[in-house]
């Protein structure tokens, strides 16, 4: 659905994106992640045909976004960051205008208007001025606008930013249901949202793609130096030295609280030492009340990849 090859955008003395190459297949919901200023919006603007790349090429539904810009644009619905709308129009009027502009006319326009108004829950505000709408409604108007011509591809730039938790949930459900029929590329800072909705994640950092995989795979790869937490009571010996003696342990931090020793153990990559610790506790006669491994989250992956120190 989307193919980007060596996509580069340079501003005066600053490279926003640097030879990006990626593909998004039909039917995928892809989360586009990265810190602010990583080049997400730039990439999306190029894909949406708003501005050309400095070099490289991009295709949307096999149309070159620069050479066949009009065909490419008519295959996609784009929701820009902050959802710019004409404040002096009414919701239905705006959607009709945008539909007509995207080549939807007559009976089909009427039918599509009804469909997107229902889908995005805009029925009660369809006659309201856009200037009077709340942020959540504006977001939905933007989404309805992107959907009006039934595009194969949706490009959504931070669709849930600035919404309250209920609205975020609604928009997330909406995106999930749209994913059944459409290909979606969405950027967001809300990582739990990505874990819930996206089949694949692209992480971009300093204008380059640093990771591209399903959220579950990324998390699995990251469990490189997982943390294991133990809480135990030991009468005789020092648990720290005993734990450090176990092969695979890198580091142990100990705190004592009401007689219970809390150990946080950093282990080597891809090993699960919990059975070893359990056995050790048995041998040493420790009273063990907690043994738990930290699960890496997408947030850890994100931080690991885009941390300023790395």
């Amino acid at each position, binding site marked *: 659905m989307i193919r980007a090859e060596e996509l580069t955008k340079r501003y005066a003395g600053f490279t926003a994106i640097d030879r990006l190459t990626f593909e998004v297949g039909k039917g995928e919901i892809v989360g586009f992640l990265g810190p602010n200023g990583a080049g997400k919006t730039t990439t999306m603007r190029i894909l949406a045909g*708003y501005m050309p790349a400095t070099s490289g090429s991009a295709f949307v539904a096999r149309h070159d976004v620069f050479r066949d810009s009009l065909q490419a644009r008519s295959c996609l619905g784009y929701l820009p960051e*902050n959802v*710019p*709308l004409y*404040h002096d129009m009414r919701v239905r009027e705006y959607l009709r*205008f*945008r539909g*007509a502009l995207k080549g939807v006319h007559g009976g089909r326009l009427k039918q599509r208007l009804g469909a997107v108004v229902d889908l995005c829950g805009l029925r009660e505000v369809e006659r309201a001025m856009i200037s009077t709408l709340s942020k959540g409604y504006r977001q939905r108007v*933007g989404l309805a606008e992107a959907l009006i011509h039934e595009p194969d591809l949706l490009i959504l730039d931070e669709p849930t930013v600035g919404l309250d938790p209920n609205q975020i949930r609604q928009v997330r459900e909406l995106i999930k249901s749209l994913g059944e029929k459409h290909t979606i590329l969405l950027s967001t800072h809300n990582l739990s949202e990505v874990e819930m909705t996206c089949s694949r994640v692209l992480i971009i950092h300093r204008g380059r793609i640093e990771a591209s995989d399903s959220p579950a795979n990324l998390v699995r790869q990251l469990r490189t130096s997982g943390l294991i937490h133990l809480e135990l009571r030991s009468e005789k010996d020092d648990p720290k030295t005993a734990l450090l003696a176990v092969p695979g342990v890198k580091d142990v931090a100990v705190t004592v609280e009401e007689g219970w020793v809390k150990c946080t153990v950093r282990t080597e990559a891809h090993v699960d030492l919990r059975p070893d610790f359990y056995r050790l506790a048995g041998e040493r006669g420790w009273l063990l009340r907690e043994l738990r491994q930290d699960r890496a989250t997408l947030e850890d992956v994100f931080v690991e990849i885009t941390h300023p120190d790395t």
Partner: protein
Amino acid sequence: MKTLFILLRRELTSCYLSPVAYVVLCLFLILNGLSYHFTLLSLSRAPFAITVVQAFFNDLFFWVAYLLVFPVITMRTFAEEFKLGTIETLMTAPVRDWQVVAAKFGGAFLFYLSLWLPSLLYFLVLGWSGNRNTVGFGAQLWAPYLLLVLMGMFNVALGCLASAMTSNQIIAAMLSSVLVLGNFLLTLVGYVLNRPSRLLRDFLAYVAQVDHMDSFSRGVIDSRALVYYPSCTVLVLVLTYHVFQYRRWKA
């Protein structure tokens, strides 16, 4: 063509459904009415060998109203789209850049034309109730309106160019004032200079809006104006197109 029509309709509805249009129209009519009033007053005191139409279109009030109106009607065309960010949604719909430029220009130009329509009533009513010869009729009446169309398209284009250069409507208005007024003041160069060279005189004959109005309001149609204004309009619109594209691409 259909896209252009849809865009143009949007420009016109956004213009006529906002109170701004009616405030502008109202103030413009006040200036026009004053101009008409003083024209009639001075003609009735000391009859000259000129028609009412001629006196009206060469009056100071007329020129003030005429020059004031361009920044007001063009400042929001592009600047507002850039400011609101709607330019991003607009240009990611399947529309061409030139269609947007043409629609913005067309919308502002049609609004400009609608501003002048009420003034036609003055002359029609006066001609109908009085002596047509003293009011002006035929070419004497429609020729100045033709010139208003011609001069208007050029100045509206200048305003659009100014608006395409910035995201700030105030700056757009100032910029278009400078362009429109600067262009108008070229007329005066001929009056200020003692002995202009022939080349300069020829040049000024092309650009002098006051001189054009003088001849058109007598019913004399100067073909130089017919060529000059449309070709300058096209030139400025091409510039606007490039400025617009440049700003979008570097965004």
